């Protein structure tokens, strides 16, 4: 048993933190915020790709480093801390994981090396409109090798070269791999709560696409991809939540009211203690998720749902109470607090809202208990 990063992983994490502090300070995040529609920082993305991070968890046989998922979690935590405005989550946690889980050998050989090398940006397009994603009511259809319909919002949908699209077909739901550069794909920017992570509406007008994984199993495969993504996103969330707590702590030590540091008032002290506790809940569940992901344990679906629910709650609390601790200044555009408030909600929604994951968690607990019953 070992419930922490290894020393090597800690070094990797420290190095990543130093690197990101240098190349992705909050001024760089803000530059993306201030330029509507740009959605990410291509220069920063290039530097991150040069670090080899894109291939961290991709097997060596596909051009990756094969370091394993816990190392990727360590990087995710630092990316989340830094708010790095890059298409890493879409490309690595979703697009690449979908290939790993559902792709055939030829598809993996064709695309994973390009991902590892940072030569393509990928995304996963599932959402079609307001409300929870229902794979039995998809409007985007895949017929005779062609995709038709609209997906919105697609994170990094404008920057991406490739997408994996959930669609309805005669055989049931299906994941479809699509080259977004073809003419029958139209894309337009949509504005979101977090302008530092780009999003698009994508119209498919008979775009050519190939099935990945088994046709009819699209929804089930998507759920597995989302479990992988949920664990990795949880680390971004925990990283961001920790930084919010640190910002609040630092401000509470620096700011005086009524002749005292505001951090000497119990209202602030206990608010920050509550944030710490919520972050610990997020972290503990995320770590368990990392273990389950890295070992592909049977507990993975359960652990992934728990990690997502806990980390989403922690980041929401940390990001809003960080603003509250800062007082009026925290509510301004100039202050950095809102960057985290926006990112917290972005990450809390990208693979489905907490209400969806709470139900997945309850279902998976039931399944786990049933499995134990059979085993015992």
């Amino acid at each position: 048993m070992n419930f922490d990063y290894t020393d090597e992983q800690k070094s990797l994490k420290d190095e990543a933190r130093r690197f990101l502090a240098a190349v992705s300070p909050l001024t760089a995040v803000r530059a993306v915020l201030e330029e509507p529609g740009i959605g990410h920082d291509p220069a920063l993305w290039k530097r991150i790709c040069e670090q080899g991070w894109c291939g961290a968890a991709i097997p060596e046989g596909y051009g990756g480093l094969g370091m394993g998922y816990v190392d990727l979690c360590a990087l995710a935590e630092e990316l989340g801390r830094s708010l790095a405005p890059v298409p890493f989550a879409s490309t690595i946690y979703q697009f690449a994981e979908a290939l790993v889980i559902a792709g055939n050998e030829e598809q993996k050989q064709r695309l994973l090396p390009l991902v590892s090398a940072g030569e393509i940006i990928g995304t996963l397009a599932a959402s079609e409109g307001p409300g929870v994603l229902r794979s039995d009511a998809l409007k985007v259809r895949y017929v005779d090798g062609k995709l038709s319909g609209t997906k919105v919002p697609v994170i990094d949908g404008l920057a991406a070269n490739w997408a994996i699209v959930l669609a309805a077909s005669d055989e049931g739901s299906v994941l479809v791999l699509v080259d977004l550069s073809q003419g029958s794909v139209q894309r337009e920017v949509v504005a979101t709560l977090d302008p530092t992570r780009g999003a698009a509406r994508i119209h498919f007008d008979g775009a050519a696409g190939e099935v990945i994984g088994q046709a009819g199993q699209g929804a089930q495969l998507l759920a597995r991809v989302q479990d992988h993504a949920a664990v990795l996103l949880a680390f971004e969330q925990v990283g961001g939540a920790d930084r919010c707590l640190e910002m609040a702590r630092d401000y509470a030590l620096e700011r005086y009211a009524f002749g005292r540091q505001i951090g000497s008032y119990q209202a602030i002290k206990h608010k920050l203690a509550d944030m710490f506790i919520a972050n610990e809940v997020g972290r503990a569940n995320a770590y368990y998720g990392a273990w389950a992901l890295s070992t592909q344990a049977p507990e993975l679906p359960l652990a992934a749902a728990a990690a997502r629910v806990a980390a989403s709650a922690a980041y929401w609390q940390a990001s809003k109470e960080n603003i509250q601790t800062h007082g009026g200044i925290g509510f301004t555009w100039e202050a950095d607090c809102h960057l985290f408030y926006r990112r917290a909600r972005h990450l809390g929604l990208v693979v489905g809202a907490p209400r969806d994951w709470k139900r997945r968690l309850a279902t998976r607990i039931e399944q786990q208990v049933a499995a134990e019953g059979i085993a015992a």
Partner: protein
Amino acid sequence: MNFDDNPEEAAYRAEVRAWIEGNAPDLSVLTAEERRTWHPAHKEAARQWQVVKADAGYACISWPREWGGSGGTNIQEAIFNQEEARAGVQFTYFMTGLHFLLPALLEHNQDELTLSLIPSAVRGDKIWCQLFSEPSSGSDSAGARCAAVRDGDDWVINGQKVWNSGAQASDYGLLLTRTNPDVPKHKGLTVFWVDMTTPGLEVRPIKMMSGDAELNEVFLTDVRIPDCQRVGEIDGGWAVVISTLMNERAALGSGTGLSWRDVMALARQTPSWEGTVMDDPAFREWFADYYIRTEAVRLTSFRTLSSLSRGEAPGPESSAGKLLWSNSTQDMSSQAVDLLDMSGLLVDAEDAAANGAFQHRFLWAPGLRLGGGTDEILKNVIAERVLGLPGDVRLDKGVPFREIPSGR
């Protein structure tokens, strides 16, 4: 207990409803862009409506006639406000002046010069703003540093203000200054009213995290104003501050903005696993909890009104109302965004459900818990003034202002 109108109230309501129907401005002629608060066309529509109301005696119903009011009751004013809201013609431009500042000003100054300022405010020709907060004293109004130094019949003022709502469009301001730094902080403050065009006074809008810019910084450099613009006593400004804060909290405690009806409408149009979100038992339990809180805000504001109508000061229950409203609004906006799932991220009016109103609220919500008294300050108010608990241990009590630690 009676939540119905009595016969006179019902008659008054019918009268003003009919009058509003016949006289209210038609906002549908404005474009979506023009209908946003602070757009010149929107502001002009609001000003014209204020003139129509003033001519008909509906502008400041509860004010005494000698101040340009109608000498009516608080209940009448509340009924008018309810009907104005119902007709969709309630505007916020004049609220700070007419509800918070001018009643406090008139409580302390009744001279001819002061009274001459009133009619233009009542008719919406002139807008007033509050100039109290400073960068180093957000919740701690009494920590103001902006210095006013006597020079003959004038005062010369230097300093900086912040969070001044509407200052960018205001004609007059109520300004809190420090006139004596050698006495404990509450005892060395003086309030003045200023013309916002006075030389040396500069307004710079602050962009808020929601992207809006209706709050401001105000810089004062050698601003010279005559002593006749002083409000209340020299070094007696804290009494004026208290008057305005009481008025402000009473007003904020009644809550505004998106209501449970809007959330319900959103839930009913958003699909869920079965039927719509409104059919989801988990949402229904949340909705019940949210509803009782917003109802409490509404009903508590009625009780404030009951007190007012008996000639009593609005009690600290309005602090409870403001806390409830701001916190439950943040919770509601979060819930609303989440129930849309990934589409909750969309913010533009053409893409987003309900024209993006919930996303805009989500980005404003943190400010609601800060403006008009932070959560923490208001809980202290309830603990100390309602429950009689001791004040916080104060390290600044009785200490000369210039010796109080500030961390800077």
